[in-house]
């Protein structure tokens, strides 16, 4: 299906965020890490504020704090200073230097600066890497997956490019996409573990942004994947990538260490959940735990209970690419007519889908949502949805006007059931009002 896009010269009520935000998010899932945005300080302040609002957790991020003259004369000096500062003060395990539109346009060669810093300081047991993420490409999802890819590279580099000594048959890698909530990642880990498999997740926001009291405040991330676990990924028997955007980082591991990967474009809906459980059964050579039999029946029963309210319903879905596709999948199972699917940027996965997809903003959503029952997007849709007469269900990022969005579960039988009920309740209430 062709990808379409609106023809406005200007973006009205954007759905898109900057790629560096995705990079900052990915690094929250690494233990004791610090993302460093190479740019002017506003970019990091906005990223921090946005993620803080969404996750209701402190967010680790720093900036090289470029000012006008630094950009013109010597952006490297600031970068060096920032690295110095972060290094000497906090000794993080991971520092990811992320460029912004400003440093990309200024054309500073920060990557070699980062390498030099690494050499000079002989940073051995920690990971310092850089990644180019200009805001004028892509969106959250691409920024996140590119960062995971670079992180993977850096981990491979740390492991010295050697093939692993041993392989553990029961150990698997999990690469979760950017749209998966902390609750989702926890649920997926749990499902995998229930087959007797050990799972190493990268990045793992389920232990850093799900909310825990632990040992108090730290400027670095608390929770997330420890660096030595990340290095052990090379010994795993396979990699499970969730979301098409995670295919490239997964492929890295295949190329470097010969670890096969399996891609699941989404884990929401009956079919997707079935495929996942079936797959786990095969690789673990263990029967599916009985609780999935129950969960599957619970889901089917909920779908039956809810189908009255979903019948004939139509929806506009405006989310990041992978998220949009997985949401579309379960909505289709519930018989919802997808009036329009909108996403902020094009990705290879979209080229392959059968569905018609629009690259656009929330204003396009508003236009196409006239007379539609349901509007699913991030919190920025809260005002547009009622103007279009649609019921609003927040999803994606940011969701700042609902508690627990970041820990809600939408994957597997249980997560799907949760969403079938949640959206079903909205339809039940709203469609009952007449019409």
């Amino acid at each position, binding site marked *: 299906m062709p990808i379409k896009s609106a023809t*406005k*010269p*200007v*973006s*009205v*009520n*954007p759905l*898109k*965020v*900057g790629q*560096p*935000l995705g990079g900052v998010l990915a690094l929250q899932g690494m233990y004791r890490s610090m993302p*460093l945005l190479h*740019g*002017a*300080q*506003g*970019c*990091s*302040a*906005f*990223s*921090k*504020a*946005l993620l*803080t*609002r969404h996750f209701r*957790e*402190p967010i680790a991020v*720093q*900036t*090289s*704090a*470029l*000012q*006008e003259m*630094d*950009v013109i004369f010597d952006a490297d000096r*600031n970068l060096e*200073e*920032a*690295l110095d*500062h*972060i290094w000497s*003060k906090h000794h993080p395990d991971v520092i990811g230097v992320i460029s*912004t*539109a*400003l440093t990309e*346009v*200024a054309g500073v060669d920060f990557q070699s600066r980062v390498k030099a810093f690494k050499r000079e300081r002989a940073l051995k047991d920690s990971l310092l890497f850089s990644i180019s993420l200009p*805001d*004028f490409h892509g*969106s959250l999802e691409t920024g996140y997956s590119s960062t995971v890819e670079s992180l993977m590279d850096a981990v491979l580099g740390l492991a010295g490019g050697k093939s692993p000594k041993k392989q553990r048959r029961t150990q698997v890698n999990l690469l979760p996409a950017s749209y998966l909530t902390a609750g989702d990642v926890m649920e997926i880990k749990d499902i995998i573990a229930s087959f007797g498999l050990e799972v190493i997740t990268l990045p793992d926001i389920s232990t850093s942004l799900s909310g825990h*009291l632990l040992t*108090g*405040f730290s*400027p670095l991330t608390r929770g997330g994947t420890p660096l030595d676990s990340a290095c052990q990924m090379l010994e795993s028997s396979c990699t499970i990538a969730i979301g098409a955007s995670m295919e490239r980082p997964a492929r890295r591991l295949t190329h470097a260490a010969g670890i096969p990967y399996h891609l699941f474009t989404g884990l929401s809906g009956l079919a997707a959940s079935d495929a996942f459980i079936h797959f786990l059964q095969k690789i673990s050579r263990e029967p599916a735990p009985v609780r999935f039999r129950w969960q599957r029946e619970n889901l089917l029963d909920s779908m039956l209970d809810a189908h009255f309210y979903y019948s004939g319903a139509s929806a506009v879905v405006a989310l990041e690419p992978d998220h949009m596709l997985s949401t579309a999948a379960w909505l289709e199972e519930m018989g919802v007519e997808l009036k329009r699917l909108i996403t902020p940027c094009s990705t290879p996965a979209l080229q392959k889908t059968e569905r018609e997809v629009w690259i656009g903003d929330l204003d396009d959503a508003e236009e196409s949502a006239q007379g539609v029952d349901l509007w699913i997007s991030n*919190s*920025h849709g809260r*005002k547009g949805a009622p103007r279009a007469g649609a019921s609003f269900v927040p999803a994606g990022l940011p969701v700042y006007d609902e508690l627990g969005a970041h820990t809600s579960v939408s994957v597997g039988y249980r997560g799907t059931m949760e969403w079938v009920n949640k959206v079903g309740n909205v339809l039940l209430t709203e469609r009952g009002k007449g019409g």
Partner: protein
Amino acid sequence: MEPAVSNGRLEVSCGKKIPKSTPCPRPVPGEASGGCSFDGAQITLIPIADAAHLVHGPIACLGNSWESRGSLSSGPELSAYGFTTDLGEQDIIFGSEQKLHESIRYIVSRFAPPAVFVYTTCVTALTGEDIEGVCKAESEQLGTPIIPVNSPGFVGSKNLGTRLAGDVLFQHIIGSTEPEQTTSHDINLIGEYNIAGEMWHIERLMQQAGMSILSRITGDGRFREVGWAHRAKANMVVCSRALLGLAVQMERKYGIPYFEGSFYGAKETSYSLRQMAYLTGDRDVERRVDKLAAREEMRLSLELEPYRKQLKGKRAVLYTGGVKSWSVITALQELGIKVVGVGTNKSTAEDVSRIADRIGDDAEYIPEGGARQILKTVRSRKADMVIAGGRNMYMALKEQIPFVDINQERHKAYAGYDGLLSLAKQLVHTLQHPVWELTAKLAPWEEETEFAD
């Protein structure tokens, strides 16, 4: 600036000096916090509710920031729309002036706003786009004011952006329209952004005393009304030093006297109302303010009674990012709370001396350092709570320290007499919440358990 009292007479502003832009200290790479100048400019101008605000740059500047403030509008919602040219790589290589032209035309033809503000960002400033030229050409072409806001993020701090936005208001807008009618009791409020509807409280108080707001700059403001601000009798700068320059410029050009005040706490509220009344030069209004203040303070003190009892002697660390510190201190003191630590980053020398007037050497001054320093102060000074902006909220929660949000993102109004009561209630409810005890306890099964044989 509190007017100096000499010979028993109030000496109001003199318009002699525009507050010196003390060269902002360079932010420390790797330890910087706070927003950029673009952010500051937005904060100041976006509350003009009927205007369109177009951000010229790649997506991050608007995409990551819109709808993050709590300024409320009583009518038009256009300024809540996010407009951006969302530049792609091609635009940056080949230039984006054409795109800017088209974007402006699109917005004007579809939304017919009274004006469009066009914000420069780091990238479009770096590539040297002629944004002023485009705005000028389109203003003439369309007959709608298209106003360039030249405050890209990399020129400095948020405060600088606010100041630059003040210049924009002065140069392009104020004096451009005429009010239908004026009275001798017209006041402008400058730097009041109507967070959580605070301005509406103040407006009601002013009305009760026989005064009115001529131009709201800019909380719940309208573009045209900002244009006629030059016809006011007086300006009040609402605890925002960054916009003081605007008031000074208005005094010079239009002879409008100004004063700096706040609405946090009953004392400051009464003081501000008295000051306004004085500047209107109407004895009758002054008398009405006196009565109003006496009545409200009396009522408030009765209603506050039970809360005061519970707050008395409590210790707080206040970290508001500077501008509001001194006024909030007064409010807290009225509730019997002892401020044992206060953030002075971004405070000017005058702010600091005002803080010192109120708390002397009894408190720790926290010049910078954010979370880490705040925590240190909480521990060393045995504070019971932190009062700060949302940025530091989760830091406090992680340490299980009661927290009250005082900044832009909050949903409660704390201004005026009723505001102080709300603040008192909020503080008491926060401090006494059962959650603090619950989180402090271990699960019973985590404690040593004796197993039965």
